[in-house]
């Protein structure tokens, strides 16, 4: 066992947890494929990817924030507000909707960056406040109701069309993840993000530009939430000021299930994606389970099962991590 792990170059406890989540994802897919017909149908796979690309995007932004030891609770509100902005701008040009939405997210991210690095308010509280503000702004802009996007400017293609047989949102998420991997693993700033998560004061003494890097990470998270909002508006044909509730918790859970510690200083882009897909898969499986007709699960049981699943995953993760650290010590 040990030599196998060595061969896989699994050095840190985090690596082990990351391997765990990927195995769990495949396990769940296998379970679904064997248990339900049509689970691996093209239709299910593509609509799954189209829908969950939004969550994958916010999870990536969240992963970077968490790697610095912070947290971003505002992503759901930001996405909702950005979807409204995108919808309002979509009649002018599809690009106006796209970039307008991203810019809206960016603005919230910048506000987060400001409150965290300049006002020095703890990320949890700072982003909790901006979450409220983002929802408020979205509702005000939208006049308390969904805003229809323009179907003429080509804006809906972003969320609804395919490219080379794959949904465009899935392409976007894929590209963003590749970029995210590059930033984290191959660019100095990625290393700086991790070092800051290891200890802000230390990082500053080592000559890192802590504030600038932190601000950039929050802006990035905001921009990705904005992008998710654009996809939301485009895919469902409306800017939705009340959407996005609980997205932040989904994203945080994805990151953690992906083996990233909330204390910062470590993290993986690939495992975050696996974590997001794993959690999303649970919804999909529950829907199929209902369709099987054996048991008609009520919505309440669904949340109990989801909570239970999260419990199992994180307990296993924690076991893996501690077993591995144990070995390290011995």
């Amino acid at each position, binding site marked *: 066992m040990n030599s196998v792990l060595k061969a896989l170059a699994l050095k840190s406890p985090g690596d082990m947890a990351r391997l765990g989540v990927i195995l769990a994802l495949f396990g769940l897919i296998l379970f679904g494929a064997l248990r339900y017909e049509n689970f691996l149908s093209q239709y299910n796979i593509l*609509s*799954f990817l189209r*829908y969950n690309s939004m969550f994958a995007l916010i999870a990536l932004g969240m992963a970077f924030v968490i790697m610095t030891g912070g947290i971003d609770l505002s992503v759901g509100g930001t996405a909702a507000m950005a979807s409204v902005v995108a919808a309002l701008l979509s009649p002018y040009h599809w690009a106006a909707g796209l970039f307008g939405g991203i810019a809206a997210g960016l603005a919230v991210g910048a506000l987060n960056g400001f409150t965290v690095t300049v006002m020095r308010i703890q990320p949890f509280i700072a982003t909790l406040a901006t979450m409220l503000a983002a929802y408020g702004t979205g509702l005000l802009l939208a006049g308390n109701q*969904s805003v229809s996007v323009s179907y003429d400017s080509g804006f809906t293609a972003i969320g*609804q069309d395919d490219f080379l047989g794959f949904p465009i949102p899935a392409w976007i998420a894929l590209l963003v993840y590749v970029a995210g991997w590059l930033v984290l693993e191959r660019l100095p700033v990625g290393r700086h993000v991790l070092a800051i998560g290891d200890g802000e004061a230390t990082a500053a003494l080592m000559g890192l530009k802590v504030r600038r890097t932190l601000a950039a990470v929050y802006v990035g998270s905001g921009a990705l939430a904005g992008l998710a909002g654009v996809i939301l508006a485009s895919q469902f044909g409306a800017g939705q000021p*009340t*959407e996005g509730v609980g997205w932040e918790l989904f994203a945080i859970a994805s990151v953690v299930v992906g083996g990233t510690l909330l204390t910062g200083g470590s993290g993986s882009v690939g495992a975050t994606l696996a974590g997001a897909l794993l959690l999303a898969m649970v919804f999909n499986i529950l*829907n*199929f389970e209902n*369709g099987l007709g054996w048991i008609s699960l009520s919505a309440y049981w669904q949340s109990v099962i989801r909570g239970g699943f999260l419990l199992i995953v994180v307990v296993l993760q924690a076991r893996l991590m501690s077993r591995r650290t144990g070995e390290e010590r011995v």
Partner: protein
Amino acid sequence: ELPKLAQKETYKVGFAQTESNNPWRIAQTNSMKAEAEKLGHQLVYTDAAGSAAKQVADVNSMIAQGVDLIFLAPREEKPLIPAVMAAKKAGIPVILLDRSVDPSLAKAGEDYVTFIGSDFIEEGKRIAEWLVKNANGKSKIIELEGTTGSSPANDRKKGFDETIKAAGGFEIVASQSGDFARDKGRQVAEALLQAHPDADIVYAHNDEMAIGAIAAIEAAGKVPGKDVLVLSIDGGKEAVQAVIDGKIAAVVECNPRFGPKAFETMLRYAKGEKIDPMVINEDKFYDSSNAAAELANAY
């Protein structure tokens, strides 16, 4: 055009529910489940937990599972269009329940079979019309809105406010959201009654908030029904009982018992009958004149 529904003994039907965090939704779900069970259909039930986006994903997973027909209780008018269109493309007929989708983007008889439901604007209008007739000199209104941004809140406000304005002589002194919840409704009512002691009418967008408001009125040392008229929408048993007790002045029913009508419509469609673009679920109206008699029938 519209996908056809083959005639079969029993069907595998999907029911995409919006949420189940209030008694009304629960009654609706139970009604659907009970009727499906009675008729022997297999019901694929999903709950979107208040998210229009998730509801679309739910419908997609029903399509992937190959259901025969989908009952959709759309959370919102616009964002559910993609779900309706996807089902149509997959050859699965859709029947909308209790809320409709944007008529400029999808049409009954073309994109979906029909819309069975209630008209939220109409509900607001009906309660307002009753008030105009029965105000007895009362005129200052506190409005407890539903969840900000939700369509029943928007529509019940619209129907009510417009009718009241047209009638003249009334003033809405405060209008705030109580989230369709009893506790929140009570807290908001407490604050508003305190700030506007002259208010003598409370219009709540649902029963839960109305009952919360009654507690607030009593706590403020006033008598509901005498000092302050309480108006509500939904018409559940507890509210109808309150009408009998004189605490709620009037309530418009918004009937959640969709099951029978929904499955009846489905079978008629399968037989090839022509279905009207809109099937109205009959809503009652309760005030002191009929509440006692109707209590047994309230949901």
